[in-house]
């Protein structure tokens, strides 16, 4: 209700200042959408564009809160069954009416996609109960299933059958391109007019949309521009009205140019340094003479705490990120389900304490270690790693930074994991801290799907018990307690050295008004372009 009220107020404010005149928006980002198939890829740029033409089962508001979408309400029937009420009177872009069967079809189509096994693999069945009701049955209890459904887009079953795309197109399969690569038929606010792969994507307003539009955009073109200086020039020369993904070094420049503004939103991601918690002999650790060390200092919680106290995340945010990030103190971040603001207090930076802890752990002079650093994908990683190296040098730990391009870095983790100390961005797949607990923090392989991205193999039995209980608890108060317990263990035992949550920046002309979103989607239906 609160969210609805806020939207109503926002709409009223916007209506007061907005002329009824329809407008065109030309916007750009770094990469092109890989396909227009809503179920084939987990690339976030693709999802941001697909969201214009397809509605998700559960809606995702601009502040990342859940809101009614194709489902008007959802209730837990029993621990393994969620019941979704389907909105009536919704039509697809081809004019056909949305039916409960389309919803069940889309869930089953999505669940089979290889890239979404982690998110939807637990779903057993989507059952049409009656014309307005669909039950989703999971193999095990799934309290956060509705949150996962914000990424489940609804496609017309008849249309898919007619065009031979009832199954998600197989990656790398031989033959011709899939129909869904360039065509879309959803119920979303914008119709897909044209998709030229790698070049541009054109939308027009869906006049038959089931909800009112807060903005006045009736057509829009998205263009990918890979080179950052060119992207910024395209904005400042007025060829584009808005660019998502404004580089850090250009934020001040765009802000300082008359007629332009910058808006920012926290990303659904936080950066952390992961440390080997399992091996008895860590990879690439050395004594002060440079000889391989036959031990794993990182298994000692005092060494982990020493790292946490030596690395000044605030300084990294101020200098390396130029203030465009927020220091993080627990294994979650603002905007995630389960975030606990009062627990989000980072270890104080304290060199003396850090040295003392190292001494107690038996490393009074420190040791040497290799820090594996991905060179792409996240913002300014190279500089973050070098800053970490100089901070650890203050307590006697010699860090050798090894940078790798993303494909090489990913291979090192996936086919191993072969790293004892690395920088990485962690996130819950669905935006709920429970996912972070299970995928990033739970003991690797202890239960199916556990620790799938726990690349440094941290392990803590007490934490595992909390995570397990969380996946089976539906009561909100009890869940909050479990989130707090898990986050506290992670911080006390230093699951990883948490650094910061980066911020997304969008640059736009001052006459464009758009609420920024953490998922990087420019929701065209909410964009207001003033004359």
């Amino acid at each position, binding site marked *: 209700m609160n969210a609805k009220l806020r939207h109503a107020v926002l709409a009223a404010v916007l209506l007061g200042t907005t002329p009824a005149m329809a407008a065109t928006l030309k916007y750009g980002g770094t990469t092109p959408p890989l396909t227009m198939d809503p179920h084939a890829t987990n690339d976030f740029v693709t999802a941001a564009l697909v969201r214009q033409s397809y509605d998700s089962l559960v809606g995702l508001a601009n502040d990342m809160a859940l809101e009614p979408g194709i489902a008007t309400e959802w209730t837990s029937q029993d621990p393994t069954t969620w019941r979704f009420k389907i909105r009536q009177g919704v039509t697809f872009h081809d004019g056909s009416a949305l039916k409960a069967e389309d919803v069940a079809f889309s869930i089953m189509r999505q669940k089979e996609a*290889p890239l979404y096994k982690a*998110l939807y693999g637990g779903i057993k069945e989507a059952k049409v109960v009656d014309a307005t009701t669909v039950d989703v049955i999971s193999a095990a209890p799934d309290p956060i299933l509705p949150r996962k459904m914000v990424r489940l887009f609804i496609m017309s079953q008849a249309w898919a059958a007619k065009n031979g795309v009832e199954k998600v197109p197989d*990656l790398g399969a031989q033959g011709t*391109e899939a129909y869904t690569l360039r065509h879309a038929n959803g119920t979303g606010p914008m119709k897909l007019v044209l998709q030229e792969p*790698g070049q541009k994507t054109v939308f027009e307003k869906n006049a038959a949309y089931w909800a009112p539009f807060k903005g006045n955009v009736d057509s829009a073109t998205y*263009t990918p521009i*890979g080179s950052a200086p*060119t992207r910024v020039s395209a904005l400042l020369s007025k060829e584009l009205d808005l660019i998502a993904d404004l580089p850090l070094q250009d934020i001040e420049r765009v802000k300082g140019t008359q007629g332009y503004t910058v808006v920012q939103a926290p990303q659904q991601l936080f950066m952390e340094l992961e440390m080997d918690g399992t091996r008895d002999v860590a990879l690439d650790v050395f004594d002060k003479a440079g000889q391989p060390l036959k031990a794993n200092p990182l298994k000692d919680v005092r060494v982990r705490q020493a790292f946490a106290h030596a690395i000044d995340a605030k300084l990294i945010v101020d200098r390396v990120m130029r203030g465009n990030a927020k220091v993080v103190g627990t294994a979650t971040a603002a905007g995630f389900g389960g975030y606990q603001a009062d627990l989000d207090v980072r270890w104080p930076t304290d060199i003396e304490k850090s040295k003392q802890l190292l001494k107690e752990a038996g490393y009074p002079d420190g040791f040497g270690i290799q820090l594996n650093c991905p060179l792409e994908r996240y913002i300014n990683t190279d500089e973050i790693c070098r800053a970490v190296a100089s901070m650890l040098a203050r307590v006697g730990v010699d860090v050798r930074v090894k940078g790798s391009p993303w494909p090489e870095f990913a291979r090192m983790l996936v086919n191993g994991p072969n790293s004892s100390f690395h920088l990485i961005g962690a996130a819950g797949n669905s935006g709920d801290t429970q996912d972070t607990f299970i995928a990033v923090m739970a003991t690797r392989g202890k239960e199916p799907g556990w620790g799938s991205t726990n690349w440094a193999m941290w392990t803590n039995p007490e934490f595992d018990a909390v995570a397990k209980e969380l996946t089976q608890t539906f009561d909100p108060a009890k869940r909050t307690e479990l989130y707090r317990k898990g986050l506290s263990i992670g911080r006390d035992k230093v699951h990883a050295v948490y650094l910061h949550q980066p911020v997304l920046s969008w640059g736009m002309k001052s006459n464009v008004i758009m609420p920024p979103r953490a998922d990087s989607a420019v929701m065209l239906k909410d964009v207001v372009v003033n004359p």
Partner: protein
Amino acid sequence: MIAFLLNRILHAALVMFVISVLAFVLGDVIGDPVASILGLEAAPADRAALRLRLHLDEPVLVRYGYYVGRFLHGDLGSSYGFQRPIVDLLAERIPATMELALAALALSLAVGVPLGVLAAAHRRSRIMGALMSFSVIGVSLPSFLVGILLIVVFSLWLGWLPSFGRGETVKIGFWTTGYLTASGLKSLVMPALSLAIGQIALVARLSRAEMLGVLQTDYIKFARARGLSDRAVNFSHALRNTLIPIITVSGIQLGYLVAFAIVVEQVFQWPGMGLLFLQALAQTDLPLISAFLLVAGLFFVTINLIVDLLYAAADPRLRIKTLAGRG
């Protein structure tokens, strides 16, 4: 002549073989396609299934066999990242790169040749000396820097030219051309100029050197003695004999222009092969990376083969040497 022809074709085939091996090996070195396609979150079982389907765990020789076999059938496979047949992707992107390279070549000849001729004719002029020194800067400036400078001046300050893309294109058969629309031509100016700038300097220096040689010859002296104007002597009599080596070099340079287009395409978001290749690298899109390398290799080898054959046609000594060497 036939022996020479066979010899050259054999060489070309050998080069193609080496390229194909390199392209294949490179794919194994730069990353794991499964990690790139499925991302970090996929379950081990899904990874294994995909490895199996992509034949990644089979012996290297068998995989190389699949790969060469497919290529010989004209089937380059499908791109992982774009999820489309690679033949379609290349057919769509080759026209953009070719038009860019040809425009840059035309520009480098149109500016470079007159500049070189004038520099040779007035070799004591200070202005020409300064221009030729300035051309060294043209050779040394990296093309991405030139591109960004052009964008700042012509898009940001003056607002005359678009900073990215190819503008409107017209489709003729499978070929899309930007030469026929106003916005297409406007979009072409800056990318072609940044690609051409190094070439202009090169062509100018080459024409000047050739021209200086020709101007020393007797027939030029006779032409002057006949009282012909400087203009007629320089541009009509001398230039003609200067052009032959310039044309040869330009032909070979076309290959380099296509290769260097990668950088320029990235700066201007020019939808050509270079941009495609960079996107493929970022996604560890192995089939696309190796297909690109093979096609680019084929292009170079073909140009070189043609140039070799033309040389032989023009210069009998080359033929004799080869035959003697074989006999």
